């Protein structure tokens, strides 16, 4: 009994579910060499561009994007009104420690290593960090490409280096999959982007080791605008992973990334995200892939953190027999709104797409699925299958589903199904009767709900995911 009282006392911020969200609530003092100050203007953009010593066309690209950003309204006619609370004048748009991207673990500064340690990344996983492009604030603080990968001719660098050293490869697709004017936040990213990964995989190369990147925010009011562009040439294969964890701050932080994938003929890209921003971050990300003939793009997207996430990974199926897939897991706890989904745009014959989304709402959390499936005129043999399942844990949890499906013509098959349920009382009773506490039983049941999707993650990620769910489910019952 006294234990329960203790839990309640330490969780004033979560009066309903009584979840202790102070896990991960820490930060270290950092000194930043370059700082664009707060607020956004043409000067900020010029400053970022000059610090990065960019080519004039990139500077023009940024300036045009800035105009688009100012011109575009917030999409609040369909999106959450919470967006209006973002104060764009109080955000830092560029911040760098002035470090050159590091090559080895030893060169990584001690305080950054401490942050990794505090985040609980075990020794075991630090080995994986060896193959990682880890982004610390806006610059890559640590970057170590496996030698074997570069020997295969794979280019793996940050956005600044990529545009500077290989414009002949990256310029062709940069900003083409997601045009600047796609939405307000893609325009913002195009104006102030820094960091992120630019990857090129040459024809026929199968990258056996997944490339990874860890993103972190560690400055108050600091917006992070990384830009990722992955090009897989004909017949190549790549798996890319990004995971985010961030310390908690008292004022809102904006994260607005743009990720563009291009799979040329027969290529396969798998892009895995585990998002666990602290619960004050606005995570407004635009992700889209362009799939050419017989290629395959698969997004595996897991959203656990942030205050508001709006992210709808998409695939434009441009070539015959291209395949797109989105696997989405979202967990919304008190004060969180996970507005996630998928976009499948069929633009060629015999293209297929699959969307599987599972969301869990805990306490007063809100999980939303928003999707688009579009099959225009004149195509044949397109198929889409969408499944959305939502699990509601507490009586005041909320879930929404807003798909939009357009089909033209009589030669396609499209189906969408969604269901909403709660954890089975019989299951919980059975497990409790076998000696598990209600919390443990709940945790096990929720893990079971997403198990078939979690299995698609690489092993270390699915272990991390399970741990995160256990953490989130602490105290959600009783």
């Amino acid at each position, binding site marked *: 009994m006294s234990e329960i009282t203790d839990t309640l006392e330490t969780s004033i911020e979560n009066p309903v579910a009584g979840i202790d969200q102070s896990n991960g609530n820490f930060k270290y003092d950092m000194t930043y060499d370059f700082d664009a100050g707060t607020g956004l203007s043409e000067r900020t953009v010029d400053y970022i561009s000059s610090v990065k010593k960019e080519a004039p066309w990139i500077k023009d690209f940024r300036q045009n994007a800035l105009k688009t950003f100012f011109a575009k309204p917030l999409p609040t006619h369909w999106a959450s009104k919470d967006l209006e609370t973002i104060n764009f004048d109080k955000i830092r748009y560029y911040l760098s420690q002035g470090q050159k991207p590091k090559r080895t673990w030893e060169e990584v500064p001690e305080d950054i290593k401490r942050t990794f340690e505090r985040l609980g990344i075990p020794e075991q996983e630090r080995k994986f960090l060896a193959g990682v492009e880890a982004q610390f604030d806006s610059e890559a603080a640590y970057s170590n490409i496996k030698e074997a990968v570069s020997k295969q001719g794979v280019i793996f660098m940050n956005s600044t280096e990529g545009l500077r050293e290989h414009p002949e490869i990256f310029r062709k697709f940069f900003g083409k999959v997601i045009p600047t004017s796609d939405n307000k936040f893609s325009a913002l990213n195009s104006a102030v982007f820094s960091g992120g990964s630019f990857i090129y995989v040459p024809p026929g190369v199968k990258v056996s080791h997944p490339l990874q990147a860890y993103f972190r925010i560690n400055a108050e009011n600091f917006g992070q605008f990384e830009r990722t562009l992955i090009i897989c040439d004909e017949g190549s294969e790549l798996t890319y992973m990004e995971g985010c964890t961030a310390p908690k701050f008292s004022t809102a932080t904006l994260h607005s990334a743009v990720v563009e994938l291009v799979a040329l003929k027969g290529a396969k890209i798998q892009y895995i995200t585990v998002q666990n921003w602290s619960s004050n971050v606005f995570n407004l990300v635009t992700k889209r892939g362009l799939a050419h003939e017989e290629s395959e793009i698969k997004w595996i997207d897991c959203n656990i953190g942030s205050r508001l996430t709006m992210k709808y990974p998409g695939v434009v199926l441009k070539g015959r027999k291209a395949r797109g897939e989105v696997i989405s897991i979202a967990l919304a706890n008190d004060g969180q709104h996970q507005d996630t989904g998928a976009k499948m745009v069929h633009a060629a014959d015999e293209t297929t797409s699959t969307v599987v989304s599972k969301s869990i709402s805990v306490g007063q959390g809100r999980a939303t699925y928003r999707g688009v499936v579009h099959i225009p005129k004149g195509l044949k043999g397109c198929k889409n299958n969408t499944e959305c399942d939502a699990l509601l844990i507490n009586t005041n949890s*909320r879930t929404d589903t807003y798909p939009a*499906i357009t089909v033209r013509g009589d030669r396609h098959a499209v189906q969408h199904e969604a269901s909403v349920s709660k954890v089975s009382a019989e299951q919980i009773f059975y497990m409790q009767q076998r000696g598990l506490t209600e919390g443990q039983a709940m945790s096990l049941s929720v893990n079971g709900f997403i198990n078939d999707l979690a299995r698609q993650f690489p092993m270390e990620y699915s272990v991390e995911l399970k741990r995160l769910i256990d953490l989130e489910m602490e105290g959600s019952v009783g």
Partner: protein
Amino acid sequence: MAASLADKAVATPAVGSFTPEAFERHLSLSPSWWHERKRAAYARFESLPMPSRTDESWRFSNISGIKLEGFVPDAANAAGTKAAQVAFSLAAEPTLTFVNGRLASTNPLPAALVAKGVVVCTLSEAAQRNPELLREHFMAQPQKLGSAKFAALHEAFIVDGAFVHVPRGIEIEEPIVLIHSAAGAGTAVFPHTLVIAEEHSKVTVVDHFLSNDQFGQFACGANDLYAGHGAKITYTAAQCWSLESLSMQFNSTVVRRDARVQSLNLHLGAKQARHESLSQLQAPGGFSEMLALTVASGAREFDQRTLQIHQAPNTKSDLLYKNALLDKSRTIFSGLIVVDPDAQKTDAYQSNRNLMLSEDAESNSLPGLEIQANDVRCTHGSTSAPIDADQAFYLKSRGIPEEAANELLIFGFFEDVLSRLENEELHSAIRNLIRKRMGK
């Protein structure tokens, strides 16, 4: 208010043919008890903007097809204007027949029903006999599906409508048939049906909307269904306006404790039709079954918006909307299930099936859920697909010609909905109506 609208640079809200002058003329023709409400409605209509492209409740709709110009409100019944030939093969004579909004003919209710207190009359008559009931239920529910402007137009220009009142405990077996007919070029009609079923009563009402001429008309109709505790309403609306018409229909259904409402909307006519249907499950045990069948041909657009609101625990709703798309037609289905906080044990289902029969047809489906209670069973499904190749092959292999086989399969597709009707006569009458519409 006016200033803030101007600030947003909204063009002067379109009133089209429904100008203040036209409204004053209309008022001079309508009974004075109605004037106050009508003036308020007209003010709403005038101030609300036309739907815009960024309006979520009009997503995918052909907004440019909705023009209010060129229509004649209060079209006088020219001599010889008769109700259009009714295609419905029901034994029951229509109780009320409206032509261009005015009562044209009546058939008395059986004396036994009159003796029990059943009332089927015009709204004007009800205003004399039952003003409280009318005030309580006529257009009393919120317009939540995007057409507040057009619902206000309906209320401002309505000439007359049907009023059905079934007292407590009375069960009526024979369907009550109501005909709403329009004729003449550009005629604007505002049909209305109000059904009030008191506690534990039972009634079947059939609304038939039709015009047989080649002209384009504007039909802006509404119907209010109210099922008191334990009441049972079966409502069928067959929309057969002329193929050049613009049709808008707003349905509101209120379901009280242990009541059950089944509504079937049949969409066969009009060039562009929008139908909004709102079901409010207000007390435990309520059940709303929402059905619709659409035959979309030519370049027609059928735009259906639905909202199932579960406001109390232990309520149930089941929606099945089926569209058959031919030629260059377009359909839009946008449905939303809302489960209010504390509406535990809700059982809600929503299904939209689109049968694609042409290369140029387009279906848009937006099945939505907003759930704020956890102990619920809510599912929805949406499919868009052509005739199943295996089924077509099977029929072919049995020697059935392709055309006949397709017809069988299309009616098989509709049967799912039709078989939910308990009234056999109504079932076959609707099937015949569809058959005629498809020229079979």
